[in-house]
């Protein structure tokens, strides 16, 4: 079983839709939960992160962590064509997985927002 599972998609939605992206994980020791966005032919860039459980909102983006279910989500409201990218979840802070500077990435979900 992989430490982090993420549906690779692709996910295609119309402009203005609400998008829900999710990851599940198996190691309850993870403490940091991140979402990276990767445009085509570019390196990933950090979009949002949360520490422990709870929600975090930044503009049109909301990150949720449910540690009891080992489930993390990223919601995008009023999606735009410029949101078309691959979204990777990344988990860190687990000594079992190598400590605070080592991240475990999901496979990434490819999102396409069409006008």
């Amino acid at each position, binding site marked *: 079983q992989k430490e982090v599972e993420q549906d690779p998609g692709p996910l295609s939605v119309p402009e203005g839709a609400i998008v829900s992206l999710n990851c599940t994980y198996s190691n309850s020791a993870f403490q940091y939960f*991140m979402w990276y966005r990767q445009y085509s032919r570019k390196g990933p860039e*950090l979009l949002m992160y949360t*520490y422990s459980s709870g929600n975090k909102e930044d503009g049109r983006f909301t990150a949720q962590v449910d540690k009891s279910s080992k489930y993390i989500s990223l919601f995008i409201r009023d999606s735009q064509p410029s949101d078309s990218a691959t979204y990777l979840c990344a988990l860190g802070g687990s000594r079992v997985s190598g400590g605070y500077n080592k991240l475990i990435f999901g496979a990434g979900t490819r999102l396409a927002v069409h006008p």
Partner: protein
Amino acid sequence: GAGVSQSPSNKVTEKGKDVELRCDPISGHTALYWYRQSLGQGLEFLIYFQGNSAPDKSGLPSDRFSAERTGGSVSTLTIQRTQQEDSAVYLCASSSMGLAGTLIEQFFGPGTRLTVL
């Protein structure tokens, strides 16, 4: 300020040849990471350098893979006797060193796309 740079951006090689991939981290970043990204796969951790500490090589898939970091800055990932399954995008990231127990953001380069024929 310059971000993480990698060279070459694309590399096509023949099976059995050796390749070297270069990473220039952000100035002042003490940590440097190499990842491999294959189609439909997540980022696969390869190796991690932190300051003068011994590198964490636990992700290197075989002894054909090696990496160096000279002078605490530039890093080179070497793949010997390349195989077709080595074809992937190789990403480098760097980060600063923070307080123990705090999350440190990793900044990624654009990657090197390696194709082994």
